[in-house]
């Protein structure tokens, strides 16, 4: 089994965090952004996991779920729901936010696109009244969301509104996933958001309509 990641790619943070938390043994290879690891995809897609069967997984969430399952932790329905929300609602908003903060130098406007999803997460955490998203223990949902939000939440220069429960949950995660900090340093090359610049420059510009949908969806 072999995991392919690249520097500056925020999706790679998720799988490295999952690897750290689960302790699954796996080769990790850093490759260039432009490397086409998955033979059937026309666009370079990272991270990618080469499975023992020879098949490639190309979705970071599916890779994280797999790492949890082979370490004996099946994901619950609640986890599934968070992973789906992360992929369909949070990611389009995050892409837009990173585009603004990293490429356009509009860090101050990031909260416009992210406040909706962050409020939703905050409400769920405070209503759930458990230390982690799906209960008393760290699940794949915590790892995926935590790593997805890491570049934004660990940058104190971004003006984000008060989300107390999110902050408490994020800080708790930082304590649990200490092995992850080193990997995050490597992926972001110790440069925080700017470490993603060359990756972001190669991504298609986000569609603004998607982000409008995300916002209105979460305000309901």
């Amino acid at each position: 089994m072999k995991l392919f990641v690249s520097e500056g790619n925020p999706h790679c943070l998720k799988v490295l965090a999952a690897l750290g938390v689960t302790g699954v043994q796996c080769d990790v290879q850093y490759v260039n952004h432009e490397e086409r690891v998955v033979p059937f995809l026309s666009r370079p897609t990272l991270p990618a996991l080469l499975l023992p069967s020879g098949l490639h997984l190309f979705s970071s969430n599916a890779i994280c779920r797999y790492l949890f399952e082979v370490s004996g932790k099946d994901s619950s329905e609640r986890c599934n729901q968070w992973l789906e929300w992360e992929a369909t609602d949070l990611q389009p908003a995050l892409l837009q936010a990173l585009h603004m903060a990293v490429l356009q130098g509009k860090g101050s406007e990031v909260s416009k696109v992210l406040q909706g999803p962050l409020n939703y997460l905050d409400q769920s955490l405070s209503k759930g009244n458990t230390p982690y998203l799906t209960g008393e223990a760290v699940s794949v949902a915590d790892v995926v969301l935590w790593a997805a939000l890491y570049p934004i939440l660990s940058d104190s220069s971004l003006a984000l509104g008060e989300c107390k429960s999110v902050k408490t949950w994020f800080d708790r995660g930082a304590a649990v996933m200490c092995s992850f900090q080193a990997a995050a340093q490597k992926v972001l090359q110790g440069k925080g958001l700017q470490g993603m610049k060359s990756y972001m420059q190669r991504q298609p510009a986000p569609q603004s309509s998607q982000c409008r949908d995300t916002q209105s969806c979460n305000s309901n």
Partner: protein
Amino acid sequence: MALRELSSLEKFLGLKKPNKYSTQGDKKVPVLQNNNGPPLVGLVTIACHLVKEAKRPELLGDSAESRAVVQQWLEHRVTKLDGCTKEDIKTILKDLNLYLQDKVYLAGNQFTLADTFMYYGIHPLIVDLAIQEKEQYMNVTRWFDHIQHYPGIRHHLPPVAVLRNRIYTGRHH
């Protein structure tokens, strides 16, 4: 659309009592009220829940690897296929065509929920393809035809004619 897919899935699974769904947001994300806890939100989440309710876990994959592959294609369906632009369509079909080159189903040799929902999602794209394009994406067309003839799957969707004689002969060496 999503609600019709869930109702077709219920019929396929043979669930006796149809569920009542609502939707939330502009994207009309399906919501299932759950007697035992908070509501379930999202097409993939609800579909996987129905499969478990019907005690058909093999539809989610029969090994850790195939379960990961199934989840990956379900995610691909709701993130890439839904709301894709005209330019995306070609890439999606080209990549899927290459992927299916040596496979009967998305998770290999076993029919899963990934086939069902990729079929539902790709149906509008296939309807619009010209004959030449159907030939260009031969593996997709073969897989699509296979799934639309799979017992109990098609339900709310009209059948799409694919030219069997031209697809199954010729091109092979």
